C-alpha cells in the first residue's frame, strides 16, 4: 500500500491463481501470518508530468493481486488513462516504478507487452480490415502459433458475438461491435493481465451488460486479472473486488466497494432545502449540531448528511432545520453508494459529463491525501 494510506482490509473475495492446471485460493493479505499475495500489478510513487507543469499523475502506489478485478474510478482528467498508459508501456513515467506480470515496465517493456492485453478508451481498430483479419494479425504479432491463428480468431469472434460480421470491414461495425472486437483483440493471446480503459463508455445498456458478463466469466473461469478504469459507479460496484478513487492525479481512497461505503457511515440522509444559497448554508450549520453526524456536504440545493442509524436521525435533523426557520421540501434516506464515497473524498460528484459540483468541504480535500 502507498505512503499515508491506512489499509482497509476486511476479508475480500479471494483471488485465485491457476497453478499447474489447478485453481488455488490464495490466502488473504491480512490475518494469516506469512501470507503472500502474488502481485499482478504493482506501482510505487508513479508520477507523470507533461510539459513540466501539468501533473497528470502525482504519486500513485498500488498493488493488484493475481485474479483480481481492480477498478480505477475517477472523472475525466483525473489521471486514469495516463496511469494505464504508463502501466502498459505506452508512456514513460516521469518518476516512480511499476511492474506488471512480474516485469518492470521500463526495463522489461517487451516482456510486459507479451503478457498483457489492452483495450484503450478509444477502440483502436483498422477500418479497412475485417474483424477476422484484425484478430489474425494481432494473433501473429503476439506470436500465437501459425496453425492456431485461424481457430483462435474464430473462437473469439464467437465469444464476442461477431461471427456474422467477421468478414465485413470494421468500418461497417457499430460502436458496440467495435468495442467487443477491441476486447477480443486484447484477449487473442490469452493474457493473464488485461487493462480496460473505460470499456463501456458510450455503449448502450445491452452492450455494457455483455462486456460485464465477458469480464466476469474470464475472471471467474480463467483467473484473468483485470485492471479497469471507469467513470461509472455501477461498473466499479458490480465488477470490482477493489476500487481506487482517483482525483487530480492521486488516489484518494482505496478498498473493496463494501469497505469504502462502510467507512463513510451507514446511512445517507439527503435534505433538499427550500430557498437559496443562504438557506443552504444555514441548513448545513444547523444539522452539524446533531451529535450523530459523521460528515455534512452542501451540494446544489441539498444538504447531505452521513449518519449512523439514519432512520432515527431524520426526525432530529428536520427538527434542527425547523428551529433555524428552514424547511426541507424533500428528505431521502439511503445506504451509501460509491458516489457518496467519491463525493466525500473529492468534494464533488462523479459526473460523466464532467460537471463538477463542489461543496464547502471540497476545499478541505484539496491536498488529495488518502484516508
Amino acid at each position: 500500500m502507498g505512503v499515508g494510506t491506512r489499509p482497509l482490509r476486511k476479508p475480500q473475495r479471494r483471488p485465485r491463481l491457476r497453478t499447474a492446471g489447478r485453481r488455488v485460493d490464495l490466502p488473504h493479505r491480512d490475518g494469516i501470518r506469512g501470507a503472500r499475495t502474488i502481485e499482478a500489478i504493482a506501482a510505487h510513487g508513479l508520477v507523470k508530468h507533461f510539459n513540466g507543469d501539468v501533473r497528470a499523475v502525482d504519486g500513485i502506489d498500488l498493488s493488484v493481486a493475481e485474479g483480481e478485478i481492480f477498478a480505477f474510478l475517477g472523472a475525466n482528467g483525473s489521471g486514469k488513462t495516463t496511469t494505464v498508459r504508463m502501466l502498459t508501456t505506452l508512456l514513460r513515467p516521469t518518476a516512480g516504478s511499476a511492474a506488471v506480470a512480474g516485469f518492470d515496465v521500463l526495463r522489461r517493456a517487451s516482456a510486459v507487452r507479451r503478457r498483457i492485453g489492452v483495450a484503450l478508451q478509444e477502440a483502436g481498430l483498422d477500418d479497412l480490415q475485417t474483424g477476422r483479419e484484425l484478430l489474425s494479425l494481432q494473433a501473429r504479432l503476439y506470436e500465437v502459433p501459425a496453425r492456431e491463428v485461424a481457430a483462435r480468431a474464430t473462437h473469439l469472434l464467437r465469444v464476442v458475438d461477431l461471427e456474422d460480421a467477421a468478414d465485413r470491414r470494421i468500418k461497417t461495425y457499430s460502436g458496440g461491435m467495435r468495442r467487443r472486437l477491441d476486447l477480443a483483440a486484447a484477449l487473442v493471446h490469452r493474457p493473464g493481465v488485461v487493462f480496460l480503459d473505460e470499456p463501456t463508455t458510450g455503449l448502450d445498456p445491452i452492450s455494457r451488460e455483455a462486456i460485464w458478463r465477458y469480464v466476469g466469466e474470464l475472471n471467474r473461469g480463467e483467473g484473468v486479472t483485470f485492471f479497469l478504469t471507469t467513470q461509472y459507479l455501477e461498473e466499479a460496484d458490480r465488477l470490482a473486488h477493489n476500487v481506487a478513487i482517483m482525483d487530480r492525479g492521486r488516489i484518494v481512497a482505496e478498498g473493496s466497494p463494501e469497505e469504502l461505503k462502510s467507512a463513510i457511515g451507514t446511512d445517507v440522509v439527503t435534505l433538499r432545502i427550500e430557498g437559496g444559497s443562504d438557506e443552504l448554508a444555514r441548513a448545513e450549520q444547523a444539522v452539524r449540531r446533531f451529535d450523530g453526524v459523521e460528515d455534512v456536504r452542501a451540494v446544489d440545493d441539498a444538504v447531505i448528511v452521513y449518519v449512523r442509524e439514519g432512520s432515527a436521525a431524520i426526525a432530529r435533523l428536520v427538527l434542527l432545520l425547523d428551529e433555524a426557520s428552514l424547511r426541507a421540501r424533500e428528505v431521502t434516506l439511503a445506504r451509501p453508494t460509491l458516489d457518496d464515497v467519491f463525493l466525500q473524498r473529492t468534494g464533488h460528484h462523479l459526473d460523466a459529463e464532467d460537471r463538477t459540483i463542489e461543496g464547502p468541504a471540497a476545499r478541505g480535500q484539496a491536498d488529495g491525501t488518502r484516508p
Partner: protein
Amino acid sequence: MMRTLLDTYQLTLRALRESARQPALEIGNVFIPMFFFAVTVGAIGNVAGRAFGVDNYTGFQLPVAVLQAVAGASGTAGLGTVTDIERGYFDKLMLTPAPRISLVLGRLCADGVRVMALTILITVVGLIAGSGMKTGPLGVVVLVTMGGVFGLAYSGLGLALALKTGSAQAAQLGFLIFFPLVFLSPAFAPKQVFAPWLQFLATINPVTYIVEGMRALVLDGWDAGSLAGAFGSIAGLGIFTLTLVLLALRSRTA
C-alpha cells in the same frame, strides 16, 4: 532478428492490403509520372539532341518518371500512419511485443513494393515509347530494385514527420521537399549544361547520383561508378530517414 522479419512481413502485407482496398489513391501515383513523362518528352524530345546532345530523350526521362513515382507513392507510409494514430490503432500495434522497428519497416517496405510496381509499369511504357534498355532484362531488374529501395528510404521522411506530429499535412511535406531535389538534379538536362551555381547544387544533391545511376542502366550500360553512387546515395538517405523515424517513434512514448 527472425521475429523482426516475420512481424515486418505481416505488417507489410497489412499495409499493401490497405492500399489494394483504396485503389483511387493510386490513380495520382500512376497518372502524374506518366503525364510528365509524356509531356516532357513531347516538348523537349525533338530538340534535346541539338540543345544538349541527348539523342534518346525518352530514355533520358525514364528515370525522372520513376523518381516522380517515388515522390507520389512515398507519402503513403506517413499518411497511413497518421490514420492509424488518429484511430488509436497505432497504440494497439505499439502494445504488441512486435519489435518497434517492425512497426515502421512494415509501412516502409509496403511503399517500396508499391514503388517497384509503379517502376515496372513506367518501364514498360518507356520501352514501348522507345527508351530502350542498354543493360537488358537484368538492367530492368536493377532499375526496379533501385526504385523500390529509394522509395523505401524516401518514405521514411514522411513517416518520421507523421510519427512526430500526428499530422497528415506534415506527413505530406516529403512530397513537397522532393520537387526541389528533382529540379536541382540533371533531371531535364545533363549537368554539364547547367550554370555553375546549379552544377554545384546538383553535385551535392543525392538525387543527382540516383538519376545518373538509373540513367546509366537505360542509356550507357553497366557502369559500376554510377551504380555505386546511386546505391550509396540511397543507403545514406535511408540511414538518415530511418534515424529520424526511430527518434520520432521514441518520442511518442516520452
